């Protein structure tokens, strides 16, 4: 049975930064990523706030260089999805699709993904009018109607971005005021293309192979409004920005969490010795590439110290 010093779960910026530090420290480390490196950042078309990033940097170019850098320091890689863990012994056990992995320390860097709107029809119509990525899919809706679900910074900023494409962008928000910071709100209120549906939630999305119809409920009055695609357009866009869903299911009941996010201290230690968390999966105030990388570096160094003890 092979026992690694460190197993990193997740190949986003947090996991890659940890991989880099672990590789340089000559830890016997394994990085497990379920499909491709990068995490959420790969869908970002432009990155301007990662110190030292190149002009015209995209999420995928940045991650591409991070992956290459990790490769140079030679940690092992595996493509697998961890379904179950056992952290009860000194040797931690991770169960993938068909393989079991063993390590002295584990770093969880599984990240978070856009939270679904949570109504019937949504899942079937992802990529068929339902989207969580304005930079990816916005331009399909050039001159069409677009609905944005949410009221926070991301929702309102993305709604503003989507006015480049849509002839009208309607923000559907479950409260009667936005949660976004004032400066962003002002821009939205001044934009003639932006409309609002207050106190409203999406109850149902439907269509034959693409979005054609949506039902919106007013949470105060219970009134239902049916929204149909313009006949000439045939469809409309629904963009959900109602926060994120941490990928922490298999750690439930094992690690201390807050709303699905894993609690750590400054050293990225969880409540179980030898188990660390880094990046968006942690309870934290700022979820950015730069903070994810910092978390990963700290966690890898702490894991290294732990294995020496």
């Amino acid at each position, binding site marked *: 049975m092979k026992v690694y010093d460190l197993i990193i779960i997740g190949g986003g910026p947090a996991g890659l930064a940890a991989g880099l530090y672990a590789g340089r420290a000559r830890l016997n480390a394994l990085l497990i990523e379920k499909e491709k490196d990068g995490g959420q950042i*790969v869908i970002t078309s432009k990155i301007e706030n990662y110190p030292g990033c190149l002009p015209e940097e995209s999420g*995928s170019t940045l991650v591409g260089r991070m992956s290459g850098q990790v490769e140079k320091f030679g940690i092992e890689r595996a493509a697998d999805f961890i379904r179950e863990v056992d952290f009860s012994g000194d040797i931690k056990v991770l169960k993938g699709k068909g393989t079991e992995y063993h390590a002295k320390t584990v770093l969880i860097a599984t990240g978070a993904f856009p939270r679904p709107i949570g109504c019937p029809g949504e899942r079937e119509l*992802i*990529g068929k009018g339902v989207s969580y990525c304005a*930079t*990816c*899919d916005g331009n*399909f809706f050039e001159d069409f109607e677009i609905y944005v679900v949410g009221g926070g910074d991301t929702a309102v900023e993305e709604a503003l971005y989507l006015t480049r494409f849509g002839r009208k962008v309607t923000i559907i928000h479950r409260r009667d005021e936005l949660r976004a910071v004032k400066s962003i709100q002002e821009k939205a209120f001044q934009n003639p293309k932006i409309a609002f549906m207050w106190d409203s939630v999406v109850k149902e999305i439907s269509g034959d192979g*693409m979005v054609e119809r949506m039902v919106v409920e007013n949470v105060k009055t219970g009134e239902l409004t049916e929204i149909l695609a313009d006949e000439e357009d045939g469809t409309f866009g629904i963009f959900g920005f109602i926060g994120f869903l941490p990928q922490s299911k298999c750690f439930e009941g094992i690690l201390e969490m807050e709303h699905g996010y894993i609690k750590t201290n400054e050293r990225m230690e969880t409540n179980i010795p030898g188990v660390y968390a880094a990046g968006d999966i942690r309870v934290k105030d700022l979820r950015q590439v730069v903070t994810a990388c910092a978390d990963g570096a700290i966690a890898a160094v702490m894991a290294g110290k732990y294995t020496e003890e």
Partner: protein
Amino acid sequence: MLVVDKDTFEEEVLSAQEVVFVDFFGDGCEPCKALLPHVERLAEKFGGKLKFTKLNTTKARRLAISQKVLGLPVMAIYRNGEKVEELVKDEATPEAIEAMIKKYAEESS
């Protein structure tokens, strides 16, 4: 891989005699860029069995919508003018694309 556009899609894909693979991509689509080398590798491997094409949807938006493509990436198989199978967004992993292509390659051999 054959580059198709809004003028040639009908002839090269919909009216084609053989089974056609279409990579729907777009200018700003980062996941599409990440998948392209895999798709090109598959095009080389299975090019004798299937016809491999790619369409830049940024320049053919109406056409994409007519094919019910409203999110990227989409990797699709067309037979007799109809889209018979597709992998959309997260479904479009290198492994899943290869499995889909293999299935139709075996069928046509």
